[in-house]
């Protein structure tokens, strides 16, 4: 076994620390939520509805709203991101490609609260008019903005995957007389499929974890959403709304149920991501 250089040791140590931190977070949440777990309240919290006045503190409506919002946002963002990635890799005039990617990177740096703030004034009144009733603060409003928010993350993944396709394949396709669109559909897309899957999972994770967009645009009613046009409260918004409650209240304890559910959902997503990733790293 070869000796590790100090730099490698330092990196190794950092990795171990980061890993421990993540494990410690789960442990902390489990300890804090122990009273809930121990008394078996956790399951009723996850399955029940939110009626603090009636002593019911379930987070099922938030769980459904979170999943619905994140999935619709991803559904909206995938075509948007795929199109942008295709343009940046193959379809746009070569001179426009790097400015396009620069724009995408800039977008990924804009704080989410800016998107939310702009949408309150620009998108919400439009949605109110378009839906014809209600306030315009709906899950769909939030999903539209969330789609724009997660698109840069997905685009960067997609572009990376498309660019990683070996040049020799591309030359062979050219020699066969493929047009750029043929090359994209029959060569690049199938070859980059694992990276695209990874990008989608990353986007879903980001959509699930985002707080500001849901909090500012989805309306925050703690009711089971009937459709994308009704208002809803996500798990993360719920944490933000209830965090100021008394430490010993059930409202506050429900935050830990939210935290554990979010943690497990994100962990499941990362597990899926890891299954997708090794394939992209192949030679």
């Amino acid at each position: 076994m070869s000796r590790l250089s100090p730099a490698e040791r330092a990196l190794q140590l950092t990795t171990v620390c980061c890993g421990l931190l993540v494990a410690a977070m789960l442990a902390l949440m489990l300890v804090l939520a122990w009273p809930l777990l121990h008394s078996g309240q956790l399951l009723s919290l996850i399955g029940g509805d939110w009626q603090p006045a009636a002593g019911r503190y379930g987070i099922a409506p938030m769980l459904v709203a979170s999943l619905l919002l994140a999935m619709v946002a991803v559904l909206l963002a995938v075509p948007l991101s795929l199109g942008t990635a295709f343009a940046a890799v193959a379809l746009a005039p070569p001179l426009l490609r790097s400015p396009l990617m620069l724009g995408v990177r800039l977008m990924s740096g804009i704080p989410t609260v800016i998107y939310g703030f702009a949408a309150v004034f620009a998108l919400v009144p439009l949605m109110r008019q378009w839906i014809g009733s209600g306030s315009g603060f709906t899950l769909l409003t939030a999903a539209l903005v969330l789609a724009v928010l997660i698109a840069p993350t997905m685009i960067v993944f997609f572009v990376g995957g498309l660019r990683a396709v070996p040049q020799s394949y591309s030359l062979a396709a050219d020699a066969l007389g493929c047009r750029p669109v043929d090359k994209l559909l029959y060569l690049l897309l199938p070859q980059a499929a694992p990276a695209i899957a990874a990008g989608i999972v990353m986007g879903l994770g980001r959509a699930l974890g985002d707080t500001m967009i849901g909090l500012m645009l989805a309306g925050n009613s703690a009711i089971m959403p009937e459709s994308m046009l009704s208002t809803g409260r996500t798990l993360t918004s719920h944490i933000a709304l209830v965090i100021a409650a008394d430490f010993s209240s059930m409202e506050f304890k429900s935050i830990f149920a939210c935290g554990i559910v979010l943690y497990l959902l994100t962990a499941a997503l990362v597990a899926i991501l890891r299954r997708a990733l090794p394939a992209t790293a192949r030679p």
Partner: protein
Amino acid sequence: MKSSFLAAALGCMLLFSPIGANAGALDGFAGAKGTLKIAGGTAHIPVMKEAAQAIMSTNPDVQVTIAGGGTGVGIKQAGEGLVDIGNAGRKPTDEEVSRYGLHMVQWAIDGVAVVVHPGNTVKALSGEQLRDIYAGKIVNWKELGGSDKGINLYDRDETSGTREVFLKNGLKDGAVAKTANVVVSNGAMKTAVAGDPYGIGYVSVGHIDATVGPVALDGIVPSIATVKDGSYKVARGLYSLTKGPANGLAKLFLDYLLTPDGQKIATDKGFISVL
């Protein structure tokens, strides 16, 4: 000529300078040093900011930081010792006072007004109508003499002090329909109602401006005058809390709020003086 210009310039400086105006009330801060951390109720923030500015411009050695978060945060952070002064829009409960050893100072009174879009023709409601609207029994403006449009309810988060006063004194502990939109501050409420022609919400009287229309409740228009004379009933005290008796900068700050100059800031921001 030259001297009269100088005199005019000096006059202007005195007129516009908070230093000149507040020198007497701020004498206590002479020689004081350090940082004062304030957090909590969002209704308190405009007053806190103005007072902090006056203090910091006479004494640059004092730093005052002001954060929002709501009444719940104010009580909790003051109690946990995370901030020097925690602001609350309600009296802390006996349990909170005894658990944290809180001391409180009431320095203003605030009314909570029902607001609608300025273009809304419904300008007056009875207490019963208001309860029915928030309970989800009245769902269309037509039933109140307005246009044939659904009513969009806006509510605050459960830990808001403004909400607590509204629920207790406005809705008489009535229910709020689960479909209500929830916003997180007085400012966000104003933005939401100002942008929604068919919305109804509530803000602290100090936050009312031309962007929203106040609604008379049982014939009484919410205003500073009606809150002050007690005829408008949806009102509350504004409190600042310290863990244990206030001392140091926190005491200086709270004393300043209770001077005529401090009270003037509160009244300028739409609240009612306690003096």
